[in-house]
């Protein structure tokens, strides 16, 4: 088969199948690569951080040790866990809604030229307006409660999922669709049995990008109007002059984002592996 240029997944599956030289050698290299390197990198990073902290002093940079004790303190009184859970919940709901709307919308736009022509200008318009521009109106429209934050996360997720899904639908090889039709599939059957599975990889890509956007957005949303969440924690810490707490909040965001992405990658590489999802 000529490797289809439009579908990166095929190429990635090909690499995934590359045989390893031997079990022992593979294990040795795997441990070095998967544990050793990241740990070494982390150690270097912390040392550099410590260096910066010593250089700039505790008023500007909280040292690793101070940050650690701040983290312990915030964990003990429950603030850290609660902030994480609250932010995660908002991200989870908004992001999931973004996928649930964006993926079908993208498929519809990819399949029906008329819908694409009608909606494309809106997608192209809104996707350039960052959610932070809408924070104030969102609060005015949806109140200071959870809804406004979830809506903002939804907003930041939906376009990127839609655009990726459209690209996926348009990238389906004509021959696959023709094959389905000539094998007797109706339009609906082609949709369910060919278009949907063929689009899974780009939906996942869109979802991953959307998750990144969600983390960027949650802070702006929570900074402006929230009594809880990591954004709020960071903002409140500023008012208390606790730079170490700010550091804890920032690191918690990064760690959460990392873990969420790992979770998506895990699902993609297990449950969705056969759809050619590249992670």
């Amino acid at each position, binding site marked *: *088969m*000529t490797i*289809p240029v439009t579908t990166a*997944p*095929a190429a990635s*599956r*090909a690499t995934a*199948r590359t045989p390893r030289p031997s079990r022992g050698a593979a294990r040795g290299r795997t441990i070095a690569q998967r544990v050793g390197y990241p740990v070494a990198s982390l150690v270097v990073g912390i040392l550099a951080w410590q260096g910066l902290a010593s250089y700039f002093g505790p008023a500007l940079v909280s040292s690793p040790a101070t940050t650690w004790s701040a983290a312990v303190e915030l964990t003990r009184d429950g603030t850290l866990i609660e902030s994480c859970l609250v932010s995660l919940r908002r991200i989870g709901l908004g992001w999931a809604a973004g996928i649930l709307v964006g993926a079908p919308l993208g498929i519809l736009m990819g399949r029906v030229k008329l819908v694409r022509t009608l909606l494309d200008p809106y997608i192209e318009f809104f996707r350039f307006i960052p959610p932070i521009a809408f924070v104030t109106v969102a609060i005015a429209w949806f109140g200071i409660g959870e809804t406004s934050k979830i809506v903002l996360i939804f907003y930041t997720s939906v376009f990127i999922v839609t655009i990726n899904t459209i690209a996926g639908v348009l990238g389906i*090889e004509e*021959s*696959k669709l*023709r*094959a*389905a*039709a*000539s*094998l*007797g*599939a*109706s339009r609906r*059957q082609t949709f369910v*049995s*060919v278009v949907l*599975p*063929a689009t*899974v990889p780009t939906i996942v890509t869109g979802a991953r990008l959307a998750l990144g956007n969600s983390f960027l957005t949650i802070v702006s949303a929570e900074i402006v109007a929230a009594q809880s969440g990591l954004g709020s924690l960071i903002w409140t810490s500023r008012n208390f002059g606790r730079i170490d707490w700010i550091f804890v909040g920032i690191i918690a965001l990064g760690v959460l984002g990392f873990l969420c992405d790992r979770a998506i990658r895990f699902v993609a590489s297990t449950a969705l592996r*056969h*759809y*050619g999802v590249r992670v």
Partner: protein
Amino acid sequence: MTIQSEVPMTATTAVPPARPAPALHLDGVGITFGDFTAVEGVDLDVRNGEFVCLLGPSGCGKSTLLSVMAGFVPPSDGVIEMEGHAIKGPCPELGVVFQSSDALFDWLTVSDNIAFGPRMRGVDKARRAEIVEEHLRLVGLAQHADKRPPQLSGGMRQRVQIARVLANEPEIVLMDEPFGALDAQTRTVMQVELDRIWRQRQSTVVFVTHDIDEAIVLADRVVVMTAGPSAGIKSTYQVDLPRPRDVDSPAFVELRHAIREDITAEVAKSLGLPTAGTTGTPEQEVRA
């Protein structure tokens, strides 16, 4: 073998069908893209159970003609019928083997690819399993039933395509250079297999190729097209050699030579070169 000119064939099309309708009937088929006429005035009848190879210079319109036969594109001009009924769109009676195995469903196993057509048509699960098993054996992929297309070699993938189409029991199988992407050895093996499968099934086949030997090995009739634009049928060769065919037999060599001269002239024309060597029409030239 005999060489027929296209002209007498067109004359018969006006006669009302007294015999059973041909598997495929093309009458004055023309295909235009905007103001570009790719194919013009193609008359062709394919008998039930016949294996027809379409040969012609690159870009003359073989794929275009085949996609019209498959119902993917309506002809801009003329009539195209399957067993006496106009072809309105793709349908399971018209199976298509594509040049590229991109047409396979990469997320399905070999078995599920083969079962796709029957599943779409509502064949029950038990019967599907039988069909799959039979066709896996037919193309020699029983051991690879649970692999997915990206895990197969090029030749195996094309065998999956063939099995997938045959599992749907089409009246007519249309193949567009199905072995075009394969190396010479694999190609030869695949030709032998296809010849065997076809003799077993006796289905009607229209097979596009630009490989003269491939055409003579497989076909009951080789149809040579003229160079485009406005490509049509140049000549038709009846191949009456016993199967499986020996590419080194004198009759094979002679036919190969005749067809090659015929095509070389068209290729030269399509590339805008002077038609050196071949003058006159092949119908007059070749007499085997």
